C-alpha cells in the first residue's frame, strides 16, 4: 500500500494516468470499495481498453513501487493469501471481444475480459462450446478462469482449462507484450508458455488474449438425482461406478441440504446425501447409460423426480456453491487420490463430531472435494476450528492430497496459508516469480509460498 504522503502520490499518479486514459477508465471514488480484497481497498481501479494502456500502468507501477491486482468478473477475486501490496486494481473487463472464430477448424481467439457465458452463447450458434465450466459464468471472465480455476467440479471428462488452451498473449510487468503457443490445434514450437500463465493467479503477467480449441456441443443431456440416508451407502454406490461401460459427464455427491428450496421435495428432506449424474450423447447410447446408472443408483437410493430443466440448474448451482463467498463460511477445496476417498471422508467427520456445521460436494471421478465449514466468531469456537482445520489439512497431505482454502474470513487467512501442499520445488516457483515479476508488482504475497 502507498504509505508515503499517500494522497499526493496518488494524485500524481492519477494525473499521469489521465493524460493517457479517458477519465471514465479510472475509478478513484467510493466505487473502488467494491473491489476490496481481505479488507484492503485499492487506491485506484483502472479499466484499460487497450494493450498500450496496460503497458503504461506497469511503467507507472514500477516507478512508484505499486502493487497491482488484476481481475475480471470478481467471482474469485478473494482467492489467495492476504496481499502484501494492493494499490491498483486492474480490470480486463473492457477487453472482451471475440477476435477470431474458425468454425471449421474448431478454434477461437478471445480477449481475456470476455465472460464465459458470452463466449459459450456465441459458440452455441455454431453447435460448439469451450469445455470449461465455472461458477457464475455470466460474470466470470476467460482471463480470470485461466488464472484461478485449474480443476473444478465435474471436469473428469473434460480436463483442465489449460488442456484446451492453444495460445496466449500476455502483458509482462516489464511492459512487454509476449505471445506463446499458437492458433493451431497441435503445436510444439518453442516452450509451452500458455501452461506457465494458466493457473498462475496473475502473478507473472496479465493474460490479454487466449486461443482455445473447441469441441462440438454434446447433445441430449440427461440427468439423474438420487438420495441416500447415509454416507456409507452413498460410498458403496460410488464404488460401483468403476463397473460402468462409460464415464458419466458429471457425478456429484453432496449433502442434500444444499439443494435449494425449489428443488427440494419430500424425498430430499428426509435424505442426508444426494448423487447427481449427467450424461449426454446420442439417444441410443444414452438409453444404455441411463439403464446402467439406474441399476447402480437404485440399490440403496430413492430417485428424485424433477423436470430436466430443473435438474440442469442443479449442476451449475453446485458449481456456484463451491465459490460461496459468505464470510461465515470457509470453503476448502481438496484434491485427493480417488483410492483414498473413504479415508478422506473419515477425516472430514471430525467436524461433525465436534458440532461444526459442514457440507460437502464431492466429484469422486476427478478426486475433488469441496467442504464448507461454518465459521463462528466466538473465541472458543474459533480455536477449536483452527485446531481441527489444521489436523484435517495434515491428514489430506498424508493421503497424498492437497488443499486450498478458496474462500474464508480474513481471520482464517491470518492463521493459515490458503495453499497447502508438500512438494520440494518451491525454489523453482520463486525463481520464476523473480524472473517474470522482479519488482513484485503483481498479486504480491497471494500465491503459493506467499509469492
Amino acid at each position: 500500500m502507498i504509505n508515503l504522503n499517500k494522497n499526493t502520490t496518488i494524485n500524481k499518479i492519477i494525473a499521469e494516468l489521465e493524460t493517457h486514459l479517458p477519465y471514465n477508465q479510472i475509478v478513484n471514488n467510493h466505487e473502488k470499495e467494491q473491489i476490496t480484497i481481505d479488507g484492503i481497498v485499492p487506491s485506484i481501479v483502472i479499466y484499460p481498453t487497450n494493450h498500450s494502456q496496460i503497458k503504461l500502468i506497469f511503467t507507472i507501477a514500477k516507478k512508484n513501487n505499486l502493487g497491482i491486482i488484476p481481475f475480471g468478473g470478481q467471482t474469485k477475486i478473494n482467492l489467495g493469501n492476504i496481499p502484501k501490496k494492493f494499490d491498483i486494481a486492474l480490470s480486463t473487463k473492457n477487453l472482451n471481444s471475440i477476435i477470431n472464430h474458425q468454425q471449421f477448424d474448431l478454434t477461437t481467439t478471445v480477449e481475456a475480459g470476455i465472460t464465459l457465458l458470452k463466449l459459450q452463447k456465441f459458440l452455441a450458434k455454431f453447435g460448439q462450446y469451450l469445455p470449461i465450466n465455472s461458477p457464475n459464468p455470466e460474470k466470470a471472465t476467460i482471463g480470470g478462469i485461466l488464472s484461478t480455476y485449474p480443476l473444478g467440479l465435474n471436469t473428469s471428462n473434460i480436463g483442465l482449462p489449460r488442456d484446451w488452451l492453444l495460445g496466449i498473449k500476455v502483458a509482462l510487468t516489464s511492459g512487454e507484450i509476449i505471445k506463446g503457443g499458437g492458433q493451431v490445434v497441435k503445436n510444439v514450437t518453442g516452450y509451452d508458455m500458455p501452461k506457465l500463465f494458466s493457473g498462475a493467479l496473475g502473478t507473472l503477467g496479465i493474460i490479454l488474449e487466449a486461443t482455445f480449441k473447441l469441441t462440438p456441443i454434446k447433445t441430449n443431456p440427461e440427468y439423474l438425482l438420487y438420495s441416500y440416508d447415509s454416507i456409507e451407502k452413498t460410498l458403496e454406490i460410488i464404488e460401483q461406478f468403476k463397473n460402468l461401460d462409460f464415464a458419466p459427464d458429471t457425478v456429484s455427491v453432496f449433502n442434500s441440504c444444499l439443494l435449494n428450496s425449489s428443488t427440494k421435495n419430500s424425498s430430499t428432506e428426509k435424505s442426508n446425501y444426494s448423487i447427481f449424474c449427467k450424461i449426454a450423447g446420442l439417444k441410443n447410447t444414452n438409453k444404455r447409460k441411463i439403464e446402467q446408472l439406474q441399476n447402480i443408483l437404485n440399490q440403496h437410493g430413492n430417485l428424485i423426480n424433477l423436470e430436466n430443466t430443473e435438474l440442469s440448474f442443479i449442476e451449475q448451482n453446485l458449481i456456484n456453491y463451491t465459490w460461496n463467498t459468505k464470510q461465515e463460511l470457509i470453503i476448502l477445496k481438496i484434491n485427493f487420490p480417488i483410492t483414498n476417498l473413504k479415508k478422506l471422508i473419515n477425516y472430514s467427520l471430525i467436524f461433525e463430531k465436534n458440532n461444526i456445521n459442514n457440507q460437502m460436494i464431492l466429484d469422486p471421478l476427478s478426486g475433488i472435494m469441496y467442504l464448507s465449514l461454518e465459521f463462528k466468531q466466538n473465541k472458543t469456537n474459533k480455536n477449536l476450528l483452527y485446531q481441527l482445520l489444521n489436523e484435517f489439512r495434515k491428514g489430506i497431505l498424508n493421503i497424498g492430497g492437497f488443499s486450498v482454502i478458496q474462500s474464508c474470513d480474513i481471520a482464517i487467512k491470518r492463521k493459515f496459508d490458503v495453499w497447502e501442499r508438500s512438494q520440494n520445488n518451491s525454489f523453482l516457483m520463486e525463481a520464476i516469480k523473480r524472473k517474470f515479476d522482479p519488482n513484485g508488482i503483481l498479486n504480491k504475497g497471494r500465491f503459493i509460498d506467499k509469492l
Partner: protein
Amino acid sequence: MSSINNKVIHELESIVGKSRCMSMREDLFCYEYDGSIDKSLPLAVVLPKNKEEVANILKCLYKFNIKVVGRGSGTGLSGGAIAPENSVQIVFSLMDKIIDIDSVNRIAEVEPGVINSNLNIEAQKFGLRYAPDPSSQQACSIGGNIAENAGGPHCLLYGVTSNHVLGIEVVLEQGQTVLLGGKLKESLGYDLRGVFIGSEGTFGLVTKVFLQLIEYPESTHTLLGSFPSIESAGNAVSAIIGKGIVPAALEMIDSLTIKSVEKVLKVGLPKNAGAVLLVEVEGLQEDTQILRKEIEQLLWESGSTEVLSAKDEKERIKLWSGRKKAIGSLGTIAPNYFIVDGVVPRTKIAFLVQEVEKISKLFNLPIANILHAGDGNIHPCILFDEKTPGILEKVLQAGSEILKICVNAGGSLSGEHGIGLEKKEQMPLLFSEKDLNAMKNLRDVFSPSNLFNPDKIFPNSVKGTPFLQNNAVKNAGKDSYI
C-alpha cells in the same frame, strides 16, 4: 583429448563404471546421429542405471562446465539428441523399468527409457493403454516423448503427451532432484510439469514419470476413403470436422506415397488415387456405428471413389499398415528423405499441399505428403539422394520454404517433432525477440548455466554462425550418411 576432458571421463567412469562410460571414437559413432539429418560426436556417452547416478553425473559435468545432452532411443526427427563436440551424452536406455501400474487410479510409474509400446503391452494386461502413439512408438522412449511433447495419429481425440503426464521426477543441473506435478490431475502452483514437457531436454533430465492411462474403447471402426485428388480428400476432412465429428484419428497420404506403399507392402491401396484418407472412430458401440455411417456418407459426398471399412481387427491392421509404414516405404523412391513437420489450420490442408507441389517443381525435388490431416499436422517428405552434390542445401531450403507457407497460413513450425537444430533458425518467423527472451528466462530458471542441450530451439544470436546443420551440409561427402 585435453587433460580436463581426461579428468571428466575418469570421474564419469568412477560413477558408472568403465563399461557404461564410452569415449572411444568407434564406440561413439552409434550416438552421433538421431532421426534427423544432423550428426556430431560427443566427448563421451554415459549410461546411468538410476537417478543417483544421473545426479552424480550432472554434479561432475556442472563442476567442469561440460554441456549435457539427454538421449532416449534417438528416434527424434529434429536433431534434439545431437550432442555437440565436447559435450557428454546421457543415454537412458538402461533406465527402462515399468515400476508400477496402479490399475485403480490408472497411473503408470515408469523410468524414462521405457519404450512407448512396451508400456502399452504391460498396461494392456490391466485393460489399459497409454494414448500418445507416435509412429516410432515401437522404438521411442517415454523420456524422449516428454522432451518433444510427442503426438501420434490418435492424439486428435486423446491429446498429446502433455495431456497424459501427471508428474515428472527430474534432475537439474547441479544434481538436485525435484518432482514436477505428481500423481493427481492437478498440482498447486505454477505448472512446472506443463512447461517442462516439450522443453526438448533444455531444462533438466527426467528420471521417473507418472503417466495417466486410459481404458480401451468398447468399439472401433476404421474406414479408408480413396479420392481423386488431395483437394477432395482435404474437403472431406473439413466436412467431417465441420459436422461436429472428432474422430480418434484422421490420416492422409498422397499419390506418391500410395505408390511407394503399394510397391513395398501391397496392402491394396488404389494405385491411381490422388489421396487416401484413413478415419477411425472409437467409443461405445451405438455411437461408433452411427458415426461410421455418417463419416462414410461424408466421404462419398466429398468425392470419394471408394470407401473400405475394416470388418475385424485383421482388416483394421491392414488398413493402418499403409499409413504406419508409409515413411519407410519411401526408400523405394529415393535413398534419403527429409521430413517437414509444419502445422496449418486443418481447413488449409488442400491449399498447403498445392503449395508443396509448387515447391517440389521449383526445387526439382520429389515430395511425398503424409498428413495427420485431422489436426493440420503435415509431413511433406522431401526425397533426395545424398550423393548428389549440393543437394542438401536445396533440400533444407525447400523445407524452410514449406514452413514459411505454414506460418503465413496461420500455422506453426512443428506439430510434434520439436524445433531442435532443424528449425531453430525459423523460430523468428513465429516469435519476436521478446517472445523468445521470455522463453529463455524460463529456461534460465531451470538451468541457470544453460548446461542442457546447447544450441537447440533458439536461433543463433550471431547471424551466419555455422552450427551442426551447416556442418552437416559441409560434411556431406560420398562417405557421409545423412
